[in-house]
């Protein structure tokens, strides 16, 4: 079973995403911000990371840049999932090493489609 780390400061979003991902047969862990997520990744690199942008402590893009410098940090497939929906944010995410990008609001169709694009399904 593939592991997915869900990183979002909203408990509701984490819950919704987790339910969809578990239906897609991922096993999920959660983090509330980038710093927590980095700790999780240092314990065990997940196969996939669903990543919010705006979070307290450490935001998504800073987390991603830090992750890609970690040992094995090039392995996880990172899918941004954020309300930031302009070209500037998307290109910045791709340059920082994101594999796919979801613009909120999302549903199971979009999540499924994007995880397929990213080669996770």
């Amino acid at each position: 079973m593939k592991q997915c780390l869900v990183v979002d400061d909203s408990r509701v979003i984490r819950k919704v995403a987790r339910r969809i991902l578990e239906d897609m047969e991922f096993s999920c862990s959660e983090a509330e911000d980038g710093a927590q997520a980095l700790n999780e990744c240092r314990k065990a690199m997940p196969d996939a990371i669903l990543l919010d942008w705006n979070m307290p402590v450490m935001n998504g893009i800073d987390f991603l840049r830090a992750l890609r410098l970690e040992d094995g940090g090039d392995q996880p497939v990172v899918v941004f999932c954020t309300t930031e929906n302009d070209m500037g944010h998307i290109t910045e995410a791709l340059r920082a090493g994101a594999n796919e990008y979801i613009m909120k609001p999302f549903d199971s169709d979009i999540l499924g489609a994007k995880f397929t694009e990213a080669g996770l399904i």
Partner: protein
Amino acid sequence: MNKANFDFLADMLLKKSGHVLAPEKGYLLDSRLGPIARKEGAASVDELITTMRSRNDERLNWAVTEAMTTNETFFFRDRTPFDLFKSEVIPHLVENRKPGVKARIWCAAASAGQEPYSLAMILREERSALRGMQMDILASDISGKVIEKAKAGIYSQFEVQRGLPVQLLVKYFQKQGDMWQIDPSLRQNINFKTFNLLESFRQLGSFDVVFCRNVLIYFDQKTKQDILNRIAERMPPDGFLFLGAAETVLGLSNAFEPIAGKRGLYRRTQIAQAKVA
């Protein structure tokens, strides 16, 4: 809906578009026709149809037909056909067409344009594999409304997130307010046209590749056969046909045969060639 109204609607739809309205598809009526009923001031879809029966207003009849035949689609739908287009069709055409001759693709049920634009993006991405070969795309649909949308090439955030890899979004789209518009240069080789598959294909010319996906399912057996045979007539002997994942030529037409191991891809048969020649 009362039976007389349902029968009237089914009959009109069959005549205008060839689409068969099965009783079990009755659940579609409210979502598809509700907005028209409200616009026409009818209290319900049933009342709308009653009005249509008494008025015989062509504009209204067509609006209803259009609403019933418009179907949702997305970029790179089902993926496999587009992979096969890249791996099988392009190399074959590059190999077998004379230099300087344009190849032609027909998207026979192009809907809001996602299929022809997906092909246009592939042609752009695979430019070096084309070795200078030009390909033109005819994108047609029975609905003038969706063809207008296709021409505009403007899609919602929801539409650009289903099937379209983000790298292609960044490369080929521009954000416009809340919407996303496709790079106008991709439209250069696409000709958009409102066209009913019940009409003669002669005026359209001939095609090396035809995408006729997820539309035959709406027609009765005889119309399916007829459409497939008329597509074959518009093709050179080595023409390719793509059908939807739930569709087949088996038992319908001898003009095409499936290509083993290539799901959804068909080629013209010797039989068709003998007949057309």
